[in-house]
């Protein structure tokens, strides 16, 4: 076993363990409904987190994700309201816009040697600000094509729904896995995360890679925006505040090192599912007041991270021995 895979296994193990514990308390949690919900409700987060994984693997960070998702919804809603465009055309246009937005962030980060945290923080303000300029209202989308997308699901035994949105997320994860682990670009991303100066000396095209990474994250955020727009059938400039932090947390819980250079895309999927599980558990519990909800989420987060850390340390020690 390669040591670098250990965090992934630990993440999966923790998720399974947590699911079992939840199941002991609420037997209903082990139903296709809950599993279906877990995939559907976290689809946009999962997609955004795949983009975030690549960014973090390269040693960067992208805080603009949540705002870009909100912008995407508004953009699509406004386009569909004001023009006769087909949603697919709107999607394509949007993906171009968000990809360009991401690329621009990457170009600034590389070209002016500014920290990613700050550039994308400004990007976060900018994307949401533009969403405000487009509309202040929440705009409903009632296009028949949207209903088709929303209704596209496979009814699993036990009434659970495996929706198109969930499928898109799984595809995005698969695509992310290929990109990160099986392409030259992916290796360059890891190289960048291992040390920019060294990567440069080894001949990695730093600038091009950086721009591509953030463009990819922008693309994924756009895709997440589309999924979110389908999910809610609306565009709302105030939506998905703070999603970037959830995405970062999911990536880290998924075993990716925040300082870059080490991690897996598959782990991110389990990070997302773990966060979703925490949410589900709290709703199932249903007795927590607002504040206890926050405290318990924090505690569970803490528990996951410490457990992960502990298992990793033990694993590493065992291997060294």
């Amino acid at each position: 076993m390669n040591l670098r895979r250990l965090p992934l296994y630990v993440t999966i193990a923790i998720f399974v363990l947590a699911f079992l514990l939840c199941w002991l308390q609420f037997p209903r949690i082990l139903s296709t409904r809950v599993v279906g919900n877990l995939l559907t409700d976290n689809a946009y987060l999962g997609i955004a987190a795949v983009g975030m994984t690549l960014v973090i693997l390269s040693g960067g960070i992208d805080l603009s994700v949540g705002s870009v998702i909100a912008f995407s919804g508004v953009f699509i809603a406004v386009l569909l309201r004001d023009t006769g465009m087909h949603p697919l055309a709107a999607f394509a246009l949007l993906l171009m816009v968000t990809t360009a937005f991401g690329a621009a962030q990457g170009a600034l980060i590389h070209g002016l040697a500014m920290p990613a945290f700050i550039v994308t923080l400004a990007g976060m303000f900018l994307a949401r600000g533009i969403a405000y300029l487009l509309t202040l209202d929440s705009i409903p989308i009632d296009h028949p094509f949207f209903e088709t997308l929303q209704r596209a699901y496979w009814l699993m035994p036990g009434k659970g729904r495996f929706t198109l949105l969930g499928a898109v997320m799984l595809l995005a994860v698969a695509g992310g896995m290929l990109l990160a682990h099986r392409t030259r670009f992916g290796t360059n991303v890891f190289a960048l995360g291992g040390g920019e100066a060294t990567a440069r000396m080894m001949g990695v095209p730093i600038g091009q890679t950086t721009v591509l990474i953030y463009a990819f994250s922008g693309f994924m955020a756009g895709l997440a925006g589309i999924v979110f727009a389908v999910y809610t059938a609306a565009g709302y400039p105030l939506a998905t505040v703070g999603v970037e932090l959830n995405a970062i947390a999911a990536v880290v819980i998924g075993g990716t090192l925040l300082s870059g250079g080490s991690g897996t895309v598959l782990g991110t999927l389990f990070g997302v599912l773990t966060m979703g599980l925490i949410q589900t558990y709290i709703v199932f519990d249903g007795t927590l007041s607002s504040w206890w909800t926050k405290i318990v989420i924090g505690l569970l987060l803490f528990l996951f991270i410490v457990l992960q850390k502990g298992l990793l340390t033990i694993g590493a020690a065992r291997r060294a021995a």
Partner: protein
Amino acid sequence: VGFSQIGSESGWRAAETTVTQQEAEARGIDLQFSDAQQKQENQIAAVRSFVAQGVDAILLAPVVATGWDAVLEEAKEAEIPVVLLDRMVDSDPSLYLTAVGSDLVHEGEVAGQWLAEQVGEEPCRVVELQGTTGSSPAIDRAQGFRNGIEGHANIEIVQSQTGDFTRAQGKTVMEAFLQAENGGADICALYAHNDDMAVGAIQAIKEAGLKPGEDILVVSIDAVPDIFQAMAAGEANATVELTPNMAGPAFDALQAYWDNGTEPEKFIQTESKLYTQADDPQGEYDRRKGLGY
């Protein structure tokens, strides 16, 4: 019954949660509470979980109007009645049992009409503290107020900024307004989209050496306890009530529906009552204090 609450972003919201819990307890209803922390995505997930859990009914205080079709359909398929609290959704009315709430635009109108009456023909420069940019109360209450003062050319909204529904921002923004309007001498009235911002603004006015309630009229919406205290001290002039007891009518409607399938009306409107300094503010304060505002 599952209750998906928006969050606990304001005192009013906290009071609504408390009152809902009290009402449920009084009726012997087992309430599953879920706090969405101001996020629609969390609310949708919560409603889905309620459906998966198989609750008997769902109370939903939607954070936005749009985007509920799919999940409401799911609830409908599972034959779980949904009652909306205090805010509306854009979906087809067949997807929910009923909605309990006040009319946000109407609240703004009441406030605007009060001001129009109050100043008569005098010219009046109004500053407006808006709610969170893009939120439906902010949009509707702004609109309503403009409706209310329509036809009174002497009343002019000269400054309008968001105070995010919070006390601190209310105070900060009011300070800027005072700066911008000649130290406040040019301001005749303040309209705040909620009481919390008004309370913050009142402090700013006092610190600028002016008398709120006299030099600058203060009108706001919600009727939380602290604004009554200010009214009692003569520092605020009027507030429009938004009752936190949305759950009472909702449970009544649900009960009737469970008992004999009575379909309630699609919209149960609560009253938007105007309170002024003449309405025993101290008494109102004492009455509301314990409600968890």
